[in-house]
């Protein structure tokens, strides 16, 4: 059964007190299971329990998701989204927002210390590892993708860049770019990444300049290091909305989780 998510940032610590009762009451009205996940602090609680918001322990700046699984999940999300939007900074607030370079303008809490370019594609067909790397190179460097693709392949020859089950992080330092560039390909069908960790569903390509600044290195390493924290990898894999996915990635690049 599909999981639906509402992704949001906590701006006001008192919002939990104001929403706890309403969310708890609403959660009991749906057949679906509703959970709140505090991704920053690796906490999860079922909203049907009265102490859920206390358990989640939301603090200003925390990145959270409400996840809904069940037959009326879409309807539950639709209803709860309005309450969340009133009290928290909702990420995918408008249906036509795209994976874009402007997300930080709309949500300044997600802005990164160094300029970053963003690209996203959803695989429409079954991909091989080579096709996926080619696709990522085309997203990042559409004029001359060959060189970048070779760089990705050379990196894979050392060792697979599958860093956690389901997620690959092909990463290179590349001459042809001035800023950090992130390209994501999400695939419903598994891609054989020739790794002991198994196939992947999400590839996050990172290209950074050959002479990176300290900030650029920190931004890139924050993402990779956070991938091993708590529920980060699971949340990235489960989040299907591209804007929410970009928000998660930007959040994980902007700081090291506690």
């Amino acid at each position: 059964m599909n999981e639906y998510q509402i992704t949001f940032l906590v701006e006001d610590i008192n919002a939990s007190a104001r929403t706890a009762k309403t969310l708890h009451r609403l959660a009991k009205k749906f057949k679906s299971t509703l959970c709140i996940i505090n991704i920053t602090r690796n906490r999860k609680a079922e909203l049907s329990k009265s102490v859920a918001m206390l358990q989640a322990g939301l603090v200003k700046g925390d990145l959270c998701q409400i996840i809904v699984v069940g037959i009326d999940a879409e309807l539950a999300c639709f209803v709860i989204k309005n309450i969340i939007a009133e009290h928290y900074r909702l990420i995918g607030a408008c249906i036509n927002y795209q994976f874009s370079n402007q997300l930080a303008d709309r949500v300044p809490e997600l802005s990164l210390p160094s300029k970053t370019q963003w690209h996203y594609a959803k695989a429409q067909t079954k991909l091989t590892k080579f096709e996926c790397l080619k696709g990522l190179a085309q997203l990042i460097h559409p004029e001359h993708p060959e060189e970048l693709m070779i760089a990705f392949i050379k990196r894979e020859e050392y060792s697979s860049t599958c860093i956690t089950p389901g997620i690959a992080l092909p990463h290179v330092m590349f001459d042809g770019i001035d800023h950090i560039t992130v390209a994501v390909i999400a695939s419903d069908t598994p891609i054989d990444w020739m790794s002991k960790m198994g196939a992947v569903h999400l590839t996050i390509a990172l290209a950074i300049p050959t002479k990176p600044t300290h900030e650029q290195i920190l931004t890139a390493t924050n993402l990779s290091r956070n991938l091993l924290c708590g529920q980060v990898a699971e949340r990235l894999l489960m989040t299907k909305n591209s804007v929410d996915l970009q928000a998660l990635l930007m959040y994980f690049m902007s700081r090291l989780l506690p």
Partner: protein
Amino acid sequence: MKIIAVTACPTGIAHTYMAADALIKSAHKHNVQIKVETQGAMGIENQLTSYDINHADKILIVSDIEIEQFSRFDLKNIIRVSIEDVLLDVEKVFLIHCRKR
């Protein structure tokens, strides 16, 4: 048990630091005192001193490339592990290589 480790990878922005974090997070569960030197894009960080090297029971080299200043180490105590093995199952790495016999 005292373990020292060096992590390194070709690009130095992902695996080096991920492997170091994985080792540090798991070490206490196995009653292991660990110090990890990272050789990544930010250069050598948390560099191992000769005191660390002389007092270590084992030296873990977690890398898919040749590491810098390899000659510092006593070859007898060196254990080479791939980055993938550490990321896949760090507990197994500790169980196999970091037990007192």
